[in-house]
């Protein structure tokens, strides 16, 4: 691991690493990069560590704090490193009223209404306009004062802000290490604000990156519903009124404002040429080079133009049937219908210039409810590489890492970059602490054209029996994943009718994920509580759901994970179909390959939730015989694959129960440090011994 990443840093290239979770992926990357930073402060100035969820981000900072403590203990000198976590206002706000709001959007809105420049300007004339005192304080004093060196987690930042009376969200950041969410780097709408000043010789790490292609696509796609357009309409009206008013009072001022807008675009061009900023994928170079088109230079023109465009979109949303077209077609249609030329549109929504990577789909209704009109215009990106391209181009090293990245070669292909290194590590285990089993269930359902499920009754009963048997022998927590929410709902209903759930209740409490996040959070917490006392609990959950993506089930919170079926994505979605087509045409990736890859990475994610380290243990039960096929098995991460042998394939419920019993009994024995020493845990002396160095070199060579 060290060697591999080291090569990468040296050669300033990009890399892909797969390493089982809980084996210290984060800490080894951090320590390595920090060491490198210390040794060559000029070559690597900054580490940007991107993770997915807020808890993950905070975890990374805590690990970093540990590392730094270790440094200062070993060297005896204090560090002058500044590392901090960045997050949205919701997580950083210290204003007593604003921070009490529960939703990010509300916090943002409220904050904006207290700190926006025009509000603050108003305050000069009418002093009773409320403003945020923390921001005022910060603006008056804090702007010039750098943050003292140290490790700042979100709470530390808040603390610091409270002590000083400054708003932590706006603290200026010249940190050596920044930890934040992917979106800050990938989503053009945010990256523009936060990340564009990052130095070129930074190292970027994307942790938990198994879904990075989806994040890229998300960040470049837009859905427009009728509601969006209505709101848009009122906003344009307001704008028009304001312009009208200003025009009456102060024509000169208006001109200036507008000039500033245009100047801004030009400046962006200058800045990019001098390589100060991270390129914004929404504003490609060639656009900036062209002058801002003349016919939208005045304010009325601009508003009129917006209105026409809006009307056009509205008319498109009135369709009765599904429409799918490519970007050029769309532009041509606009030109025909409302006489808007391509050029001005480009500067407004310049993404269209990547013509072929985008598609436009207009659906008049949801598939499930064909009678209720709910038109949506999906403007969807099909090429994940667009969003991430500036990152690869700009930074010298980008490392993509996760517990489940298999098969490794597909990521460079879909993200369109050339990695210097690719490696998949397995765990060296003193005891086999994971036990993957594949049960011999046939395929349970088929998706017909609509979302009606065909459920095979006998298989549902079999699934229920498996869960029932497992609930009797597995201690503490069991997590079961279904392939989709609708599917789970139906199975739960038939289990209820068949009385299976009641029997399960004799052994464990049952909690079920719902579409509502707050409700699910509650269920999750209760689930953990139930695991901590009594006979434990079962959590029924959905692959690709929020639980499967962000929640770990360490130790007794997940002693067994059952994956019912293969979590294929819902293939009838038009957006997906378009994307598959695109992948086939542009990257020569076959539809089935991609779908299997996608299903398997989600399955691996789900089952991987239970193992969080070498002292942990858990059963992984794949309840579908398709997992036994080579094409599926081969796409599981190596650290899971190597524990699947012929004996654990095609099992009946009884066989699976027998194997599980045996496994659980073995695992329940005390596991001490001495058992691991020398095998999966090395003392410093052992690590430095000649023999071990050779062994490590050999492993590094293989990978």
């Amino acid at each position, binding site marked *: 691991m060290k060697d591999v990443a080291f090569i990468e840093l040296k050669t300033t290239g990009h890399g892909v690493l797969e390493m089982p979770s809980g084996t210290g992926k984060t800490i080894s990357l951090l320590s390595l990069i920090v060491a490198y930073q210390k040794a060559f402060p000029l070559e690597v100035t900054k580490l940007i560590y991107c993770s997915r969820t807020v808890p993950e981000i905070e975890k990374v900072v805590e690990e970093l704090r540990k590392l730094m403590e270790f440094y200062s203990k070993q060297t005896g000198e204090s560090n002058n490193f500044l590392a901090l976590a960045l997050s949205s206002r919701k997580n950083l706000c210290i204003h007593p009223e604003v921070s009490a709001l529960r939703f990010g959007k509300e916090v943002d809105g409220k904050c904006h209404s207290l700190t926006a420049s025009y509000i603050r300007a108003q305050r000069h004339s009418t002093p009773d306009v409320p403003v945020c005192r923390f921001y005022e304080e910060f603006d008056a004093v804090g702007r010039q004062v750098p943050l003292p060196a140290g490790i700042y987690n979100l709470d530390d930042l808040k603390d610091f802000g409270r002590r000083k009376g400054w708003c932590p969200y706006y603290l200026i950041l010249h940190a050596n290490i920044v930890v934040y969410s992917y979106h800050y780097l990938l989503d053009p709408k945010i990256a523009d604000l936060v990340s564009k000043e990052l130095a070129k010789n930074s190292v970027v790490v994307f942790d938990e990156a198994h879904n990075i292609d989806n994040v890229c696509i998300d960040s470049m796609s837009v859905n427009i519903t009728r509601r969006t357009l209505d709101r848009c309409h009122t906003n344009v009206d307001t704008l028009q009124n304001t312009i009208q008013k200003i025009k009456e009072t102060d024509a000169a001022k208006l001109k200036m404002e507008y000039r500033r807008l245009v100047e801004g675009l030009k400046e962006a061009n200058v800045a990019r040429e001098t390589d100060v900023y991270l390129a914004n994928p929404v504003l490609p170079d060639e656009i900036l080079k062209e002058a801002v088109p003349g016919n939208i230079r005045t304010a009325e023109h601009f508003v009129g133009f917006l209105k026409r465009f809006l009307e056009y979109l509205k008319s498109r949303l009135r369709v009765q049937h599904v429409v799918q077209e490519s970007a050029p077609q769309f532009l041509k249609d606009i030109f025909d219908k409302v006489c808007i030329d391509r050029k001005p549109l480009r500067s407004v929504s310049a993404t269209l210039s990547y013509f072929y990577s985008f598609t436009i789909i207009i659906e008049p209704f949801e598939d499930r409810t064909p009678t209720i009109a709910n038109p949506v215009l999906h403007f969807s990106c099909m090429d994940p590489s667009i969003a991430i391209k500036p990152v690869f181009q700009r930074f010298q090293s980008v490392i993509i890492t996760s517990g489940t990245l298999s098969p490794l070669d597909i990521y460079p292909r879909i993200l369109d970059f050339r990695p210097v290194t690719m490696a998949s590590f397995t765990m060296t285990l003193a005891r086999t602490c994971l036990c993957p089993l594949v049960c011999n269930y046939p395929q349970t359902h088929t998706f017909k054209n609509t979302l009606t499920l065909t459920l095979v009754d006998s298989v549902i009963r079999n699934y229920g029996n498996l869960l029932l048997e497992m609930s009797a022998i597995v201690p503490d927590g069991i997590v079961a994943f279904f392939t989709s929410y609708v599917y789970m709902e139906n199975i739960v209903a038939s289990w209820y009718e068949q009385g299976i759930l009641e029997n399960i209740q004799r052994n464990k409490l049952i909690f079920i994920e719902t579409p509502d996040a707050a409700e699910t*959070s509650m269920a999750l917490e209760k689930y953990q509580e139930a695991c901590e006392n009594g006979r434990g609990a079962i959590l029924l959950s959905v692959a690709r759901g929020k639980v499967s993506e962000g*929640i770990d089930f360490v130790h007794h919170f997940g002693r067994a994970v059952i994956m019912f079926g293969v979590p294929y994505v819902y293939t009838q979605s038009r957006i997906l179909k378009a994307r598959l087509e695109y992948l086939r045409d542009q990257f020569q990736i076959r539809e089935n390959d991609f779908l299997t890859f996608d299903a398997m990475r989600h399955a691996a994610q789900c089952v991987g939730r239970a193992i969080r380290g070498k002292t942990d243990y858990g059963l992984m039960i794949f309840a579908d015989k398709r997992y036994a096929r080579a094409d599926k098995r081969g796409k599981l991460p190596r650290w899971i694959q190597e524990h699947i042998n012929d004996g654990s394939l095609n099992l009946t419920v009884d066989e699976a129960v027998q194997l599980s019993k045996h496994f659980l009994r073995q695992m329940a024995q005390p596991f001490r440090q001495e058992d691991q020493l020398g095998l999966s845990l090395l003392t410093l002396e052992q690590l430095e011994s000649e023999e071990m160095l050779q062994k490590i070199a050999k492993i590094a060579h293989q990978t």
Partner: protein
Amino acid sequence: IALSSRNIFSVAHRYMSCRPMSSLSEEVLLVVKKVRQRKQDGTLYLMAERIAWGPEGKDRFTVSHLYADIRCQKISPDGKAKIQLQLVLHTGESTTFHFSNESSALKDRDAAKELLQQLLPKFKKKANKELEEKNRMLQEDPVLFQLYKDLVVSQVISADEFWANRLGDINNADPTSSNNKQEVGISGAFLADIRPQTDGCNGLRYNLTADIIESIFRTYPAVKEKYSENVPHNLTEKEFWTRFFQSHYFHRDRINTGTQDIFSECAKQDEKGLKSMVVQGVKNPLVDLLSLEDKTLDEGYGFCKTFPSTSNSNRTVKESSNSAIIKRFNHHSAMVLASLQFLTSSTDGNSRDSDFFQPPVKKVKLQEVIEYEDLQRENRPKTVALNLKKSDRYAHGPVPLQSQHYTTSQDIINSVNYIRHEMLNYKPNLTQVLSSTTASSAIAALSPGGVLMQAATQQAINQMVPTEVQGELKHLYAAAGELLRHFWSCFPVNTPFLEEKVMKMKSNLERFQMTKLCPFQEKIQRQYLSTNLTGHLEEMLQTAYRKFHIWQTRRMLRKT
């Protein structure tokens, strides 16, 4: 030692049911005349601790059950010609009373039922616990089970005696459990336990016990409220439960339509409860799905994977019934958990709104997550938690049998010093050792096969005796050991109770010898095996007898 335990097994039961009507000092709570049992007319008495029935014109009870022995009562369905009440005992036996007073049979039966309903739960807990405990001990310990069979089933000693100090041990072993009872949560499956049975004529029968009712009340406080509101003013208890089981509330997969249903309000209250739980949010930030995502700017844009909208308007009936089931299970499990109030209250309410309290929980959770057990630096010596059976003994050290043998630590230090001193000055006296020939012959004699080692080569018993005899012998030893333990535990005999016990024990021992040991001796004689086998057993018994005689003569002396 608690001697309160009652036997729950059949043997003792027989003793009790034959108990004459002598102890009439008991408080009689209810007398019902004209009650038939086994086609015999008689009178039913409900007393403070037991229920009894005596045939007409006799002055003794032929049926008598302690309430603690009764598992449950059953009544004949309304409309049946015979109005009956059945008592089911823990042993599985049952007694049926037929109320035959034409005019007031139903009233009589209900009066008895009501009273029993109040009385039984009081005795039940204790009995249940003991019963469970005893059962568990017998199941876990095959030796004990064998003993039980040898001694109790064959009537050498009574079950009460058998359990007397067994259970005492348990109580001693875990003093906390007897003093402050651990609160028991409710089973997650209590609703599963009331699966209806069809009664053959197009109806369903639900069996309710006091436990289940309590579970329902604790899990669904709204139902309890309804119960106290409506019973017995508006509805009888039976009607209430009938409606409960018919209600949409109980069958949550049916869609709530009827409004006259008294439970529809409960459903609403439950929903409210669930909602308030949801609004309260979670304490552990690591499981808060709402704050997981760190992206607020583009909500509403993007290709967000929205679940199908949950509003009821565009969902089919089936779908909303499905989601009702899911909600119900979540709620049910949460309520079952919440019944462990003492636990939830102790986990310190870090309410969401007080931001200042939040960091601690969060910090702790974060630290937990990034800690690798196997990489911990400081190797704290792993200790085994001490499980003390008698903590005072641990605190005071072993109590000396005879005080003069007690050595103080000073004595020990002195003697160690003395030995050390001796060792320092030790000089081997080489002129006075054994001659080499004597030494080697001594070694030879002490080696296996040597003259002095003859005894050790005595053939192991397992080669001489057939296995079944061995097994029998083992059982005999175990049984004798048990009896002797009882016997010796009576000394010193300083209370009248112990006196009585020691007498009984002695006779028990004698009976054992007669009924068990002697037949075995005869048997091995018949098989021409060495009678030596039981020598030790007899010796033990003789010692006990001797002790008994000494004690008895002393007592006689004292008395005279």
